[in-house]
């Protein structure tokens, strides 16, 4: 069976959910092999096997952490040259996309970024689906040259276990001069609260300019907590300094595709839509009945978020008790 390479996204050995989604998609195309860079492969191998990785290539070299992007390019390109996979899948995101582009250039392959789904075409080769133009168009495409290299957005599919015991293979990468050109001077991990991560969450509750102040974001957080949701923000709220940039949803922030997106005090500008339009269900709370966000909403409440949201929390708690 054709081998499919999947680049693992992990935090100190803890495999992140989008990687499990990639392994699930990879099984539609062939037999997944995971490529794990950095320390912590021991614990990760078990998780990767649970989701169907028959093989785990491990590159535990200091270059991977000390330099930006290019060590991963050397590793992935060299493994691909030796393994001759039928496709290479990576997580979408700045690092994943840059790695993918450079690997594709080296392998003289084609590249598709930000796929939201992958299926096997008639010849078994991957056919991708993408949402483009601020998610107003749905495009299917395929790669016409070389080993298809594809980056996939989070939440493209639900991870499904398919347990195997993976063969773990240590790889010595011969790093070229490009690998060590951009030095990582320092790395400050972002505080991770108790809430789910924005890209991975099933529910996202976002606040915009209507929230009107950093302290008022507590109103948004309360709704998020009662629903078990991640917190998002519009660029207006982020630019005002009310909420950290890592929570920005939209074209230049994070693009989310949750089951439920609740937007409060957000007008629904095209750049914001670009990051949330593919949500399954959209709910909006806005005091302006003509706000464009209502055009997308499956359910909308015209009203003041400072009244509507606390009352919603009370009502949900009442229903639960």
């Amino acid at each position, binding site marked *: 069976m054709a081998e499919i390479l999947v680049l693992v996204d992990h*935090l100190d050995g803890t495999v992140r959910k989008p990687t499990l989604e990639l392994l699930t998609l990879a099984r539609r195309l062939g037999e997944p092999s995971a490529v794990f860079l950095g320390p912590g492969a021991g614990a990760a191998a078990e998780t990767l096997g649970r989701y169907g990785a028959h093989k785990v290539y491990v590159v535990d070299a200091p270059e991977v952490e000390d330099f*930006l992007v290019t060590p991963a390019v050397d590793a992935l390109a060299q493994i691909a040259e030796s393994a001759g996979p039928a496709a290479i899948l990576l997580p979408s995101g700045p*690092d994943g996309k840059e790695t993918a582009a450079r690997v594709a250039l080296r392998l003289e392959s*084609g590249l598709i970024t930000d796929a939201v789904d992958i299926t096997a075409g008639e010849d078994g080769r991957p056919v991708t689906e993408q949402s483009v133009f601020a998610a107003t168009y749905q495009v299917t495409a395929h790669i016409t040259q070389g080993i298809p290299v594809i980056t996939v957005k989070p939440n493209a599919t639900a991870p499904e276990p398919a347990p195997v015991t993976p063969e773990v293979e240590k790889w010595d990468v011969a790093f070229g001069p490009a690998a060590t050109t951009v030095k*990582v001077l*320092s790395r400050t991990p972002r505080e991770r609260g108790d809430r789910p991560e924005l890209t991975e969450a099933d529910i996202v509750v976002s606040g915009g300019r209507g929230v009107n102040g950093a302290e008022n974001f507590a109103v948004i957080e309360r709704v998020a907590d009662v629903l078990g949701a991640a917190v998002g923000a519009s660029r207006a709220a982020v630019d005002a300094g009310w909420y950290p*940039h890592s929570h920005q949803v939209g*074209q230049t922030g994070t693009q989310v595709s949750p089951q439920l997106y609740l937007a409060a005090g957000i007008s629904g500008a095209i750049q914001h839509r670009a990051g949330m339009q593919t949500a399954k269900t959209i709910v909006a709370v806005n005091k302006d009945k003509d706000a464009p966000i209502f055009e997308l909403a499956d359910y909308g*409440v015209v009203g003041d978020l400072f009244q509507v949201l606390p*009352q919603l929390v009370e009502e949900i708690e009442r229903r639960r008790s």
Partner: protein
Amino acid sequence: MKIVVCVKHVPDATADRTFTEDGTNDRGSVDSLLSELDEYAVEQALRIVESGVEAEITYLTVGPDDAKDALRKALAMGGDSAIHVSDQDIEGSDAFGTSLVLAGAIERHGFDLVLCGMASTDGTMSVVPALLAERLGVPAVTHLEELTVEDGTVTGRRESDSATVRVQGALPAVVSVTDRSGDARYPSFKGIMAAKKKPLETLDLADLGIDTERVGRTGARSAVDTAARRPPRTKGEIVAADGTGDAGLAAFLTAKKFV
């Protein structure tokens, strides 16, 4: 030193963008402008010069005839000269073709620093800067929110998926900047008038010695099978807040099993 800023002329993102029959971007259907995300790269180039670095700023675009407008807009913000690469055979290029042409023009002109936006607002691939670095054989210091150029290096801050990272590379290098790197200035009236007199060179593939087979539709490494407008979201129920605990919204969320 020589700074080259790559600017793209893109269909207005706030207009209704569509596809042509053959699955490429329909550029004729809406107005185009200098990509907003590239204005941040222009701004950073100008600030580098204003900070005392002696440099000459050249804008570079690859695109059809009217892509010149993007160059004039950038020149109106400041800077010295512009290069427009235009050729029938470039039409339909993917990121590999576009980066090949950009790299050819950059090499021909000479460079110490190439500045790019974080993504083009139409393609949104965010890969051209990395491809340029790979082709030019120089470091790629990408997605910077803040940068300093001194002593032959570029140092900056980058937000990755899970961390804030400080990175550094030696010049010559390719750098891309985000929309958080600093607000872009508006062209002044004086700037707009001055831009009309600044040198703008037009090149084609032959000038760059690039084989037409490697770019355009023939050189593209992927193909669109279908492009369909997403069915518009059926507008749901919009209600006025009832002041009684928004039982309606709670009931909706319960019915959808979110509660």
